[in-house]
């Protein structure tokens, strides 16, 4: 997948013309943003807690190797198999190998951005394993064969009528679109069968706690508990940056995650997995249930090169989605315009960094730099700064469009001398006259950096001159 400016514009235009989608986006993002605000307002020390969390995240990344090794040691001690994956292909190979070793043909999955990122479902299908998404939203888009359009609400773009149609096709029974609880009950029934039949459960991990070798999963539906409990084998795929060194750190993390994501004080289920079922629990007797094997795949996929770079801060992200809900670009363009599992402001920064700036050259520009994302971020990540850094990289790495690089290079040259600049502006004010239409600069579309929108014309008198003459 790539996202060039033309692709972004094309996909965004489709979204903008879809009235139903615009309503859904407005409704969902508005509700999330309002709920988040209320949840944080309920704790008067929320701002200090966020500062504290940022300090935790920064310190953790500064010593990430040590924390990962602690995690590995503690997880191994309780019987978890820890794997390391350099990239998506390696991670997929590890998971499919485990599945094949156990003769697994059906795997249930709980929602995981890491598995979206590495296209695990395609790899599993190719290896003869049928992956079934079990988060309701994620399952809906799997049935529709579409990518997620929001980090935490992947199916916000689907109507209940579309959902009913998908369920009808899947169940072979008529479904009533007017009855959302009935559709939910139908999903419960159909997916319960899958949970019980699956040979393997696959999850992501919201965080991993190093000191006890635990993986923490947060869900509202309970599917996270299902996939980590019912099948014989559980595999968790988790980015190497999602480490909380201690339970004290995890408590801060969990205090902010749900509040920032959905405005809940706590998600309904926070599941902490520490190894497979015990053959001898504290009293020496075996656990009655739980998976016999637990695997954790620590996924790098472009993360470790960011540590120590000007982009390290992006690894402090906990994928709450708060920045999507307040972003004026995301709220109009929707998630699919970004062409990446990660959309919105965080996606605009992390997609080029993980998957290549040359593949996602449009995303650093998919922002008005209003700063709303940084305001709501639980780790106060300075996304606007990194968007600007990426825009600079586009030029210095020669990825920016040829004409754009020439234009920006010339402007930069001209602006170095006040006299040259004044001269060029003077020439421009005269030269633009034949192109003016209703006071705007109507360039032929292929020469217009503003796309379909006309550019503002050069003012009769520049601000500089107004200032000099004491008019402002």
């Amino acid at each position, binding site marked *: 997948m790539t996202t060039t400016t033309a692709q972004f514009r094309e996909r965004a235009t489709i979204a903008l013309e879809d009235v139903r989608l615009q309503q859904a986006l407005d409704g969902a993002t508005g509700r999330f943003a309002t709920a988040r605000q209320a949840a944080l307002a309920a704790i008067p020390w929320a701002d200090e807690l966020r500062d504290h969390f940022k300090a935790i995240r920064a310190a953790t990344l500064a010593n990430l190797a040590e924390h990962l090794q602690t995690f590995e040691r503690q997880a191994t001690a309780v019987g978890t198999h820890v794997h390391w994956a350099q990239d998506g292909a390696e991670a997929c190979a590890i998971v499919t190998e485990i599945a094949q070793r156990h003769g697994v043909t059906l795997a249930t999955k709980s929602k995981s951005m890491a598995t979206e990122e590495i296209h695990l479902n395609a790899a599993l299908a190719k290896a003869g394993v049928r992956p079934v998404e079990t988060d309701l939203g994620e399952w809906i888009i799997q049935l529709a064969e579409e990518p997620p359009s929001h980090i935490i609400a992947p199916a916000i773009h689907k109507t209940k009528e579309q959902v009913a149609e998908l369920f009808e096709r899947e169940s072979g029974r008529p479904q009533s679109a007017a009855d959302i609880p009935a559709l939910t009950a139908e999903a419960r029934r159909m997916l319960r069968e899958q949970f019980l039949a699956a040979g393997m459960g696959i999850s992501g991990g919201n965080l991993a706690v190093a000191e006890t070798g635990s993986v923490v999963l947060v869900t*509202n539906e309970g599917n996270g*508990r299902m996939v*980590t409990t019912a099948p014989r084998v559980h595999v968790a795929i988790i980015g190497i940056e999602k480490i909380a060194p201690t339970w004290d750190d995890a408590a801060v993390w969990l205090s902010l995650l749900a509040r920032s994501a959905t405005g809940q004080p706590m998600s309904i289920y926070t599941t902490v997995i520490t190894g497979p079922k015990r053959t001898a629990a504290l009293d020496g007797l075996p656990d*009655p249930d739980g998976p016999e094997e637990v695997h954790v795949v620590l996924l790098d996929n472009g993360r470790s090169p960011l540590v120590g770079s000007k982009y390290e801060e992006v690894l402090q992200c906990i994928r709450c989605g708060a920045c999507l809900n307040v972003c004026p670009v995301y709220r109009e363009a929707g998630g699919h315009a970004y062409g990446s599992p990660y959309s919105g402001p965080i996606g605009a920064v992390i997609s080029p960094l993980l998957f290549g700036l040359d593949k996602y050259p449009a995303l650093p520009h998919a922002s008005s730099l209003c700063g709303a994302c940084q305001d709501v971020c639980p780790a106060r990540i300075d996304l606007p700064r990194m968007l600007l850094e990426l825009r600079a990289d586009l030029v210095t790495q020669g990825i920016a469009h040829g004409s754009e690089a020439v234009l920006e290079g010339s402007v930069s040259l001209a602006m170095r001398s006040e006299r040259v600049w004044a001269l060029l502006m003077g020439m421009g004010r005269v030269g633009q006259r034949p192109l003016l239409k209703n006071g705007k600069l109507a360039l032929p579309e292929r020469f217009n950096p503003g796309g379909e929108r006309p550019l503002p014309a050069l003012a009769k008198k520049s601000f500089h001159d107004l200032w000099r003459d004491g008019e402002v």
Partner: protein
Amino acid sequence: MRTRTTILTRLQSNNRALAQPTTWQSRQGFNDLAEQFVTALTAVHGEPHLAPNLEGATAQLGAILAELGAQRVVANNEAPIADLNLPTRWPHLQWHIVGETAGDLREFCTYADVGLSSGIAAIAETGSVVIHSGSAQSRVATLFPPVHIVLLPTSRLTTDLFTFTATHKNTHLANGTLPAAMTFISGPSKTADIEQTMAIGVHGPKRFIVILYRE
């Protein structure tokens, strides 16, 4: 192994001396933890009850089971449930006591009406109950049935996540004592994935009932 070395070496070469901040101390103060728990759990569609003592809690449990019309009940065999001799008390119900009753636990849970458990702690701020897995603590017993009922003394209430980690650091959260699964449950299973409309009971229990009792 090569991947592991590559990743760790790269990270180590960018290692910096930056200490973790000192532990965040809880700033939350509730006059009455039980009252706060009831308020918080009610807000998330859970069903809290407050009983004066264990006897009262047991009577409350009986009333709820009757009202539900429950027939098959699976119970984790832990305090205080283990001491209540439930199968003798309500012999008309079909019981599976984890670790005690013979037969397929998973099969029983698949068709059970109610799962009954206690918890190691409850968090007042968020209305959450913390449960552990163990030899007598089934994970599916609190997950498969449509109703989960918790019986818990108020002495296990703690203010928030920070007091929980501070209190249990050396007991329930330490290496060796942390079980295969620990779950914080904060209400009945829910989703808003279809048109942002809330629906209760998608995969986990549809009703989450907590009977707190004073000791």
